[in-house]
Every structure is written in structure tokens, then in C-alpha cells.
């Protein structure tokens, strides 16, 4: 029985370090190659020794596919390809290919230059790794080799995020990566066709959440910013450089435009500018509004948002500043925060989740006095707001995707075990016939598949069979047909028996069954024969029953002869002979005659 094997090396009942191995139809594919944010030791990268203890991975993997540029999906890529060793193709979409190296480089800088780690991948390794990348387009079917093909679907989430369908023959797997089923200000919603994969590997970050409409949150955000700016206050929005930051920029930019506001908006420079450049280029990956209006104006060419300079923070009057990093633990955002914290007119808006121990977390939990380094305390007078924008599908969204794709099995990854449990139950309960899996890291799930085997059928045979039934084949009802299956040079053909014999140069063997039936019948042989004839004629309506002059009765191709036995002239022996093809009729006749003739 053919089967698909899936083993998560990371992201199994866990968030971070996404890395999933799939074996399908004899091919091995690695889906994503991420790092874990929570660890600083070996555990941050997937355990590639699972694949092979020593040596390079190239011979064990047919391809690597990266779903999007977030580090928990691509952070281990240079390590895997350059340090462990992999030379095969790496597939990712164009925007991912463009933005991914920027993030990797940033990641490397922080780990090596700031934290002083050694034995880490170098800039050159990132470059070498990117050389192995083969870019993908949406809905483009790429042949990795003769049998393995992959196809990308739009996934929302971040620019360039994709879901991938992996197909070998008629077996297929869909891996979603991270996706979002509700559109936002700059990206559309994930979409997939009814591709009915054998298994759908879906993220499940928000497995137990059903979210409110986005509009309220947006409106709240805008209102808060607007009110503060009108009061003459300053607004600080700490963000991470890519993803949500762009969404918030678009949101504020359009709002400024709509409301004709004049207060300046700044964006602290850094890798953002480079990334924004790519956002401008990959317009086709954004949502309907941006795609339709970019001819008049590219929405990412911000009119109101300018680059930030350190000195601007002391300028009088209202302003809005986006600054990195997002949790206020270091860098520019913290510097600005220190300057503005003392004024109650100002406001800080935390657009995401903050890790414990960071300034952001302290603020959110309501601390009014913060201890800074150097034993100084900072009194927080400014207003603190929390605003959550998330780009993952919620429980309803996951169900919606399952409904769209109609998979036979679902596998949940990239989420917490407890939450997955709930969703797993729901999926199995609400979709009949779909079984759901949630393997832990290193745990292999095996799914038996039932691939259909395509067979070429000869046209003559098909026409002959079609002539029996109705004019149109009914796709809902299977039909049996007679034919010969020829397997030759890895091709399968169904032909009529005669043609098969001819092709294989074989002689046809006739197979005949004969049987004797004894009858008690006190007539002469010829009379008995005619009685048999009449009897059969009356029973078998619709068959050709012939009385031949040579003293035989023919029913279709079945021959009947009558002879009296040597001992008892009243006991007649009927000789029946039929060919293999008429087995049904022959056995029917023999049992019929055994019952005797009517008087």
C-alpha cells in the first residue's frame, strides 16, 4: 500500500522552528527550515541529524520549500544548506526570495556582532544559500523532476507568503505555512482551489480563537491616534520592521489622506526602507485596493510618512513615530519612549504581544514607575494603549480552508498541543471522513493513500463497451468491463482480449466445459431431444435456441446432445458442452436439466 509519511522536525505541537519532512511517492521534501526564537543554543535549529547522522543532506532531500520570510520559517536555511550541506533546489516565492536575505543578515548581525557568538553562518553563506533558490510564481506548476511537481497558492499573512501543493502522480500534500483568511489593509485573504489533497498540513496558532471583525480594532486605533494628535500630543508606535508595520503604515497613511491631516508621521529607518522598496515592487501580491490603484499611485509610496531622524524627537507639536523594536526593550523605540514618557498628552500604542521582562510588558501590566539602567526611575505619564493585529487564521478560518481544499486528512502543526486537541476534535466531528493528526516533533505520521492508477484504454474496446450500456457513461456508477491489462515498459494499457493476443503473439486457447446430465425419459433419443429443445425454447426466451439437423441443440454457443445409456434405454444422457465465455448460461442449463423435463 502506498503511503505518505510526515515528520515534523520543528513546529510539531509547538510554535517556532517550522521544519517538516514529507515523503511522498518516493520523494523527500523539506517544508520550511526555521529557527526557534526562544532558544539560543542548539535547540534553536531543527535537528537535521534525524535525516542523516553525517554527511550532506543533498542525497536525502529532493527539494526544500520555504513558505514565507519570517525567521521561524526560514532562519535555519543558511545553516542547513551551507553548514550541514545541501545543494538541491530551494523553492520560495519572489518576494520571499527578495526579503529573506535581509532578515537573515539582520539576524546574523544580532547574533554574531551583538551577542558575539561564533560558529554561526556568515554573510557569504547567506549569499551562497540564496543562489540555490528557485523562485516560484503563484499558481505556477513547477516540475522539480519528472514526477514531483509543486504549486504555490496565495496565503495572505505577509508579503509573499504562500501555501504549497506538492504532488507526485495522484498523491498530493498541501502545506499552508502561515496564512490568513481575512484580508487586511495591504494583503488579501488566502485562497486555494478544491484540490482534494491526501493531507493538508495546516498551522493552528489560533486554534481556539474566533476573532472579532478587524474593523473595530482599526477604528479604535485610528481614533486614538487622531485624538492624541489633535490634542497636540505625540504618538509612539513600537513595531517590528516587517509585516504589521506596513499594514499600520498603510492604515495611517490613508487615514491622513482621507482626513486631510497635517501632523508628520515618521518611520525610523533601518532595514525597513529596503523592505518597503520590495513592497512597492511586489504589488501583485497585495490586496485588491492596492493592486487596482497602483497605476495612479503606489500605496507604498507614502506621502505622509517620512524617514525619522533622531533629532526630530525633540521637535514641538504633534507627530506619530513608528520605531523598532516592537517590545520597547532596546534601540530607538526605547530612546524615544524615555523622552516622551513624562508628558500625559503623549501616547504609546503597543501593536502586539510583549515578552515578559521587556519594558513593553511592564507598561501593559500597568506599571507607572519604571526602573531603568543606572538606577534611574522613569515616571510614566503618557497613555498606554494596546492594539492587537494578527495575521493568522482563526479557528473559523482554518475550518474554512479545510472546506475549500477538501483534504482526506488534516495535520495540525505550528500551535500549542492543548489548543490543537480542541481543533482536532472539531475537525473530526464536523467533517465526516476526515481524520486529523497532530504529531509532536520527531514523531512520524503515516497516511495510507489510495492512488488511482491511470490506464490507457483502447478506443475500440471503449466503444464496444459503451455500445452495451446507455449512450452516456454515468460518472457516479462504476461499470465492469472485460478486457486485458497489458503492463509493458511502465505503461499500462487495457485492450480487448483479441488485440492482446495479437500483440503478444499468443494463440487463443479454447476452454470448454462438458457435463453429462442423466434424465429419466421414456422416449426415443430424437424425441427426447426435441422435448429438450421445446423445453429450453419455452424457458429461455430471448436466447437463440436452435435444433440442428445433425441431432444437436444449440443454445447460443452451448451444444446439447442426447444419447441413451447402454444399461437402461429409459435413462437418457444429455451431453452439455459450453465454452468459458458462456459459463453462466451453461451452469444454468445444467442445473435446469437436472430438474428433469416437464411431462
Amino acid at each position: 500500500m502506498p503511503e505518505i509519511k510526515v515528520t515534523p522536525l520543528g513546529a510539531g505541537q509547538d510554535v517556532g522552528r517550522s521544519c517538516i519532512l514529507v515523503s511522498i511517492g518516493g520523494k523527500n521534501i523539506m517544508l520550511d527550515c526555521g529557527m526557534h526564537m526562544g532558544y539560543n543554543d542548539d535547540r534553536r535549529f531543527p535537528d537535521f541529524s534525524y535525516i542523516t547522522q553525517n554527511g550532506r543532506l543533498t542525497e536525502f532531500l529532493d527539494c526544500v520549500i520555504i513558505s514565507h520570510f519570517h525567521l521561524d520559517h526560514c532562519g535555519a536555511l543558511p545553516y542547513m544548506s551551507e553548514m550541514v550541506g545541501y545543494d538541491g533546489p530551494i523553492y520560495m516565492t519572489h518576494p520571499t526570495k527578495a526579503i529573506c536575505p535581509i532578515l537573515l543578515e539582520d539576524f546574523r548581525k544580532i547574533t554574531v556582532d551583538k551577542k558575539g557568538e561564533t560558529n554561526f553562518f556568515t554573510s557569504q553563506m547567506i549569499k551562497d544559500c540564496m543562489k540555490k533558490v528557485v523562485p516560484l510564481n503563484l499558481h505556477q506548476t513547477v516540475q522539480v523532476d519528472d514526477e514531483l511537481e509543486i504549486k504555490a497558492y496565495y496565503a495572505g499573512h505577509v508579503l509573499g507568503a504562500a501555501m504549497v501543493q506538492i504532488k507526485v502522480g495522484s498523491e498530493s500534500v498541501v502545506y499552508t505555512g502561515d496564512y490568513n483568511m481575512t484580508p487586511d489593509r495591504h494583503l488579501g485573504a488566502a485562497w486555494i482551489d478544491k484540490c482534494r489533497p491526501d493531507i493538508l498540513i495546516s498551522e493552528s496558532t489560533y486554534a481556539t480563537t474566533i476573532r472579532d471583525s478587524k474593523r473595530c480594532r482599526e477604528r479604535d486605533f485610528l481614533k486614538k491616534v487622531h485624538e492624541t494628535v489633535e490634542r497636540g500630543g505625540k504618538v509612539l508606535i513600537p513595531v517590528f520592521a516587517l509585516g504589521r508595520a506596513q499594514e499600520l503604515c498603510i492604515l495611517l497613511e490613508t487615514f491622513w489622506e482621507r482626513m486631510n491631516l497635517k501632523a508628520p508621521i515618521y518611520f525610523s529607518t533601518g532595514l525597513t526602507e529596503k523592505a518597503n522598496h520590495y513592497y512597492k515592487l511586489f504589488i501583485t501580491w497585495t490586496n485588491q485596493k492596492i493592486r487596482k490603484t497602483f497605476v495612479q499611485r503606489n500605496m507604498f509610496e507614502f506621502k505622509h510618512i517620512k524617514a525619522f531622524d533622531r533629532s526630530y524627537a525633540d521637535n514641538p507639536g504633534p507627530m506619530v513615530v513608528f520605531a523598532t523594536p516592537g517590545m520597547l526593550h532596546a534601540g530607538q523605540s526605547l530612546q524615544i519612549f524615555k523622552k516622551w514618557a513624562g508628558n500625559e498628552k503623549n501616547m504609546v500604542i503597543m501593536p502586539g504581544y510583549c515578552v515578559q521582562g521587556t519594558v513593553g510588558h511592564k507598561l501593559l501590566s500597568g506599571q507607572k514607575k519604571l526602573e531603568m539602567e543606572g538606577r534611574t526611575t522613569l515616571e510614566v505619564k503618557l497613555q498606554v494603549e494596546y492594539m492587537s493585529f494578527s495575521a493568522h487564521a482563526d479557528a473559523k478560518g482554518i475550518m474554512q480552508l479545510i472546506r475549500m481544499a477538501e483534504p482526506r486528512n488534516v495535520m495540525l502543526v505550528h500551535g500549542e498541543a492543548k489548543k490543537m486537541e480542541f481543533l482536532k476534535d472539531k475537525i473530526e466531528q464536523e467533517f465526516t471522513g476526515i481524520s486529523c493528526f497532530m504529531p509532536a516533533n520527531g514523531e512520524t505520521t503515516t497516511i495510507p493513500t489510495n492512488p488511482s492508477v491511470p490506464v490507457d484504454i483502447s478506443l475500440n474496446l471503449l466503444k464496444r463497451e459503451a455500445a452495451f450500456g446507455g449512450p452516456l457513461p454515468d460518472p457516479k456508477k462504476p461499470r465492469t468491463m472485460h478486457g486485458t491489462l497489458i503492463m509493458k515498459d511502465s505503461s499500462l494499457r487495457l485492450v480487448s482480449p483479441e488485440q492482446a493476443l495479437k500483440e503478444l503473439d499468443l494463440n487463443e486457447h479454447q476452454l470448454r466445459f462438458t457435463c453429462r446430465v442423466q434424465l429419466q425419459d421414456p422416449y426415443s433419443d430424437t424425441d427426447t431431444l426435441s422435448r429438450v429443445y421445446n423445453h429450453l425454447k419455452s424457458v429461455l426466451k430471448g436466447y437463440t435456441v436452435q435444433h440442428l439437423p445433425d441431432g444437436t441443440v444449440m443454445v447460443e454457443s452451448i451444444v446439447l446432445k442426447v444419447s441413451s445409456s447402454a444399461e437402461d434405454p429409459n435413462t437418457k444422457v444429455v451431453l452439455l458442452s459450453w465454452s468459458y465465455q458462456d459459463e453462466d448460461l451453461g451452469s444454468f442449463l445444467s442445473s435446469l436439466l437436472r430438474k428433469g423435463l416437464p411431462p
Partner: protein
Amino acid sequence: YTSHLRIEQHPHEEVPAKKLRLTKPSKSAALHVDLCKASSPTDALQYLLQFARKPVEADSVEGVVRILLEHYYKETDSSVRLKIASLLGLLSKTQGFTPDCIVDDVINTLNSERSHQVLAQLLDTLLVIGTQVPESLNMRHRLIDVACKHLTDTYFGVRNKCLQLFGCLGSVDKPLPRESEGGGTGMAAKDVQSIISDYFGDQDPRVRTAAIKAMLQLHERGMKLQQIIYNQACKLLSDDYEQVRSAAVQMVWVLSQLYPESIVPIPSSNEKIRLVDDSFGKICHMVSDGSWVVRVQAAKLLGSMQQVSPHFLEQTLDKKLMSDLRRKRTAHERAKELYSSGEFSSGRKWADDAPKEKVDTTAVNLIDSGACGAFVHGLEDEMYEVRIAAVEALCALAQSSPSFAEKCLDFLVDMFNDEIEEVRLQSIHVLRQISTHITLREDQLDTVLAVLEDSSRDIREALHELLCYTNVSTKECIQLALLELLKNLTKYPTDRNSVWKCLKFLGSRHPTLVLPIVPELLSTHPYFDTPEPDMDDPAYIAVLVLVFNAAKSCPTMTALFSDHTFRHYAYLRDSLSHLVPPLRLPGRKLTSAPEASGLASSVESAQNFLKESLTRVCSVQQLDAPGAQSLLEFTIRDLQRLGELQTELAGTADFCATYLHCQLLLMKALQDKLWSVAVPLYLKQNAMVSGAAAQVLEETYKLEFLYSGLESRQIASIHHVRLQAKALQLVLLARTRRGVEPLLSACEKFLHEVDAFQRLFVTELPHFQDSFVDKLLDIMPRLAGSKPADLVKILQTTLRHSCFPQLKLPEQIRRATAAIIEPTGESDNPLRFTSGLVVALDVDATLEHVQDPQTTVKVQVLYPDGQSHVIQPKPADFRKPGPGRHRLITQVYLSHSAWTEPCQIDVKLLLAYSSSTSRSLGPRSAWNESTEGPTPLESTIEGTIPLSKPVKVFIMPKPARR
């Protein structure tokens, strides 16, 4: 020389070949020749393609069809046969050709045709023929038989066409008759619907779609669909192909409208629900379909399912939020709670959206909850088409269910923040439409008012309109609204009128809420006198408009006014009378009569008065009758006054007055005794008469084009007056000029016009008994032959001795009016620009009852030196805020050479007309042009009528500095 030589030689050879052709070359013959000449199928195809480009006359169609069929039988190439088949279809559409004669041939060819594509095309031809002759039952049965026979074809196109035939021709009234067994198949005895529904499960999605469409077509033609197909239709909702799903959604909807109350079982449970509820749930489910086309379709249809139970309806707005398996309240619920607990500010606290109680895991249903959250999804959709459809559906449902309206309010308000302006605008409009059902809470009003700062003028004005109709609950709301509106006013001063109007309605709607805040609004103080506010401040006027309108139904309010408020009232009542209502002020006599009582009856009495005065005027049969003139004068005055008093009748009264004024002018011109006196002595009177004639002419154009709602009878009357005026001009011409030549042509022209009148208004002629035209037409044959001098004499007498026809009024006549709002003409600051370059002047005007303003309304700019420019605004500059109303917001480019000091230019709107675009002439003249060529008299008269009062704009072109 050489060319000459060649000409010499050639005729010699060619002469015998030339023949004089007396008949028009027959189309059919030409085609025949072409087809015979064709050596290859591609050639033949080319000929046919060329042939198809030209129209064929009705009488030669038959012949052409025969030739085509003849060729068809011979042709071996299927593409040529296909083209012929499609040509047959095209030809049978020719007007005046009855295609039943070719049905037999087409059916015959069907039987012998082998190619599936050609078969499909032939069936299409039959479909065309069948729809051309819808009455013939016999033919329909035959065609249905043919369709039955080919339904089992293996090619999808053929099955498609057969199903289409069923849909378009399947008999509506009864099952197919059994006697049509000539067709032979047993299927014919079956009911059309069951035949079609067999194909719901076809293997080809296109055929499935065609089957559903055929069914829908039957429904449209009035056949009642059977309920049994409901289950099949529901199954098709989960089809793999979007066009099938899209059609199936429609099908389910149709069935839900047909059998709303019948009961269907819920699968996998013993419960049963109403069919309309079931289908509502299913269509809601389609709002989250994978294809946006289906989503739009589903969202649209939801709006029309008003019979659905409220329980299901309210589910569409509830998504059953949870977070981490805990039940969570939506932001809307939280806002409401905060508001009712007295604390008005949302989201200030960290984790105030923290989830509450734990959810029972087994009870959570993630997908199969039918209607759950359908609109939440629809309003959040990626495609704005879906969002608009969802907003519209919300509107339709909310209008029929007040409780639903209350619930969907929050969602609509949220849509004000959409990224696409169209969606925002639409949701504001929708909210206005349902605003009668709802009262806005303070926090909701707050969100609504935030939009007032939008830079788009359309959005702001839509919002003002919305505020006009909104009910609010507290005095704080009024204060808030006023504050925001004033803010709006300072930010966008051009919104002045709209803001004032909005405050007028806000005041008159909520007098009791305004009352407690009046002292604050007017900043009065119980002991101290406060400084008198500036009367020209638009913000102060805005406040006053609010207060005065509230005071109208709240008499105690006037006690709170200070002295200057009364003075300002008097001033505003005069200057902005449409915004400030009459108030019952202490110590002042109430001037205007109580108008609220019996408004309807006063309209009626006014109408009676109008009718009476018209009949009275009609009694003036003879123009010379004593007192006729003064009667007319009085009536005209009465009518004008009536128009001012009764706005409903203004158009009608105005129209009558103008018409009578024309009559009066004519009467005066003819009555003078000057006609019997020698000409040279009465030059002065002559001038007077010619002026009158010209004025009458001008007035008739106004009558014809400025008023809408005229019927052809009134137009005939107008043309009649015009004819009289022209006759008068002719007579004058004859008396003043000696030359015969101009007179001759003028006479001819006039006769032409009489002729045209007769042709145009044949049906109206009986109403013109005894009138000028009637008399003229009686002696027309004589006129045509007579000399100009005689003609003039006849005209003169007829003019004087004919009575004028009675004016019959149509239901309602509306006068096209326009008012320029911007520029106001008040500015003393000249618009300075460098001469030779252009300056853009913003023009904002409202148009009422102007038909097709995009083509007719123009802006005229008149410079002080007499130069005038007419500018045609872009079609996109016209908006349509309401029925009969248009708004023109455009920019006019001005330019001029340098002046020494600022001067005023006149800007006004013009209504362009041309006789050929006149309503009664429209189709007729088009036909004329194609057959006989344009008649000069009918198409050349073009001109403009001033539509608005001119506005003066100060401009100053300066010489360019070097």
C-alpha cells in the same frame, strides 16, 4: 497622350461585354455566384464572412436562405457549414421575415448532420427561430421534440443548446402533450422540468450550468418550479465549478421565494425547519465561498430574503467569538456595555477584552452553524464588490425588520472606515435609508461624526444628509454633533450650505434636546450682557439655524433669547428664509398663515384654481373680444403668484403663464389697427410687432425644452404658437421689404414648416379644430401654388381670425432650474492670474429637473469686453444626489489678455437644445436621415436657454512680468 491612347484602344474590346443593368443587383444572386466561385472551403468562408457584414432586405431573405441551404448540403467542410448555420440564425432575425418556412429545412439538416459543433449551431439557429415566433404552439412542440432527441448527444455544446431550447420554449402551462410522439422518444411525454433536472447531474459542468439556467428561464417565463428540485439544487451548491455554484445559488433562492413556508428536514437530526430558513442558511454559507463571483451573488440575494425568521437573521451578525476556548464579547458588545455603565471611553484599559467564561468545547460549532456570521464575513471580504453587495443586503433586510436594523447599526458604522470610498459612501447612504428605525447612541454618533473630517466632499455631504434623518438620544449628542459640524465648517468652508441644512433638520427633529442647551449655545448669561456675536460668522449662523428650528415647535425657547437674537432672527428670516422657519415671537404679529393645517387640501384647491383660470381663458375665443387682453393679463399674474405660493404646482403654473404670455403677445401684435394702414408710416409699431414675434419664438423654445413631463399634445400646442409667430414674421417681412427673392424663399420655408407640423403631429390634429393650423391646412393645396403676396394676405387674415387652441395640462410639469452655489459673487478679492495663462474657477451648482444634463448643460462665461465662452463640463462632474436633482461640481478655465484693473465676468449655466433632439422628433428624424436625408428645417435649429442667474466673479489678469 499615352493614357489617351490607351483609352482609345480599350473600349474597342470591352464594349460587347458591357451591359446596362436595369435592376438592382440582387443580393442573393451575388451570393450564389460567390459561393459557386469558391474553390476551397476557406474561400467560401471568406465570402460568407463578407456577406454577413452587410444587412439583407426582408424580401430577399428567403432567396438567400435557399441558396445557403443548397450550398450547405453540398459542403463537406464543417467550418463552412457552421458559418452557414449561424448565418441562418442571423437572417431569421431580419425584421419583417417570418422564419417558420425554414424550420423544416433546418430540422432536416439536423438529422443528417454529423459534426457536433455544427449540430450545436443549428440548434442555436432553431432557438433563434423559436424565440422569433413565440406564438406558434405547434412549432414549439416540434422544436422541443428535436431538443429531446439530441439531449443525449455526447458533445456538451449540443446538450447545452438543447437545454437552452427547453428553457426558452418549454411549455409553461402544462406537461408536454403526448401526441407529439412523432418525435418518437418516450421522453417527450415527460414533464419539461424533470427532463431538465436529469441534467443537474451531468458530467460536464457547462451542461449542469445550462440545465440550471434553463430552469431559471422557465421560472422567469412564469412556470412554477416544483419543490422536489430543491434538494438537487442544494447539492449543486457544493459543486466544483463556480459557474454551477453561482447558478445554483440563484436556483435555491428562487425556490425559497416560491415555497417559503414549506417544511424541510434538517439532515442528521429529526428537526424540521421552514424552507426559507433552510435556504437562507445555505446561501449564507456561500458568502464564504472560494469564488468571489459566487460570494457577490450570494450576498446580493440575501438582501431579498425578507421572509426569513428573525432568529436566523440575527445570527448573521453573530460570529460567536472566543479566545483560548473562552467566550469573548465583541467590541460592539463591550462598547454598549461601557456606554450603559456610564463610562464613555473604550479600550483604555489593558486587557479589557479579556475573555470571560469558559466555553463548553462540545457546544462550539465551527462551520455548520449556517447563517452564523455571514454578514460579518461578507463585510470583511477581500473584494469590495462583495462588501458593497453585503452592505446593500443589510440595508434591504434592515428596512423590513427594525430589530435587525438596530443590530446591524454597529456593523454599518464600522463600514464608514472601509478603504474604498465607494463602500464608505454606500454604507452612509444605507444608514440614512434605515435611520427611521434607529436611534444612535452617543458612542455610535461619535464614530459617525468622525467621518465629517473626510476630505471627500461626497462623503461629507452624504453624512450631512444622514444627520438630517438621524434620531439621537441625548442632549450631549446634539452638542457633539454641533461641535463636529462646526469643526467641519471651519475645515471645509465650502460645506456651509450643507451644514446649515443639516442643522436645520437636527433642530426641528430634537426641539426638547436643544432646549436645555440653548443658553450655552447662544452664550447668554442670566445677569450679564454678553457681546453680540458677529452676524456674518457662518458658525454663528449655524448655531442660530439649529436654535430657531428647534424653537419652532418649542414656544418656550424664545424666552431664552436675548435682544440681539431677535434682531438676528429677523435678518436671517429674510436672508436665509429656506433655513429659518417662521416663529411665533412674543410681541410680534404672526405674519404668515398657519400652513401646516390642510396642506394637502390647499394643493388641491390651488389645482382647481389653476384649472378654472385656464377654462376661463379658453372662453376668449375671439382675439378682438373686449376685455380679452386684460383677462389674459390677470390670469398670467394670478398664475405667477400661484407658482410662488404652491411649490408643487410651480412648474405647471409657470408653464401656463408663459404659454398665455405668448398668446397675449400675439394678440397684442395682431390687434393693433396698424395692419390696415400703409407701412412706411408705422415703422415704430412695426418694430414693436417684430420684437413681439421674436420674443414669442424665444419663449416657445423655453416652453419646449425647459419643462419636463410634457406630452406630445402640449408640444404640438407649443409648435403651433411657434408657427403663428413665424407666420407673423413672414407677414412683417412682406410689409417691410420690397424684394421678392427673400420673400419667396421665406414663404417656401414656412410652407415646409407647416408641412412638417402636419407630419409630426398627425395624431394631435383633431385637437386643433378651428385653429390657425387647421385653417391653413384646409387651404393648403391652394397655398402651395399661390404667389407670395397672396400667401401673405391669406396668412394675415387667418392669423387674425383664428382662435387659439385650448391648453390641456398633463399630470405634472416640472421646470428645469439651476442655481450656482459657488462662486457666490460676493467676493471683493479679484482672482489674479497671469494673462495668457489659465485660471481654474470652481463652479458648484445644483440642477433640478434637468433631463440628461451631461449633454445639455453648459457653462457660459461672459467677459466684460463682450467675449463669451461656452464650456461643456465633463460628464463625470455631474453627480446625482437624488431623483430629479443633479449636482454640478466642475472647474471652469478662464483666460484673458491683460486688463488694467479688476473687472467682473458673468458666469451662468445654459441649457442647450436642438430641435432634432426634441422628444417627439427623436426617432422620427433618425429614420428620416437614413432614408431621405435630413430635412433642413427639422435638424438645424439649435440654441441655448439661460438656465441660471448669472454670477459675477471678479478677475484680474495681470501682464506677465519679464
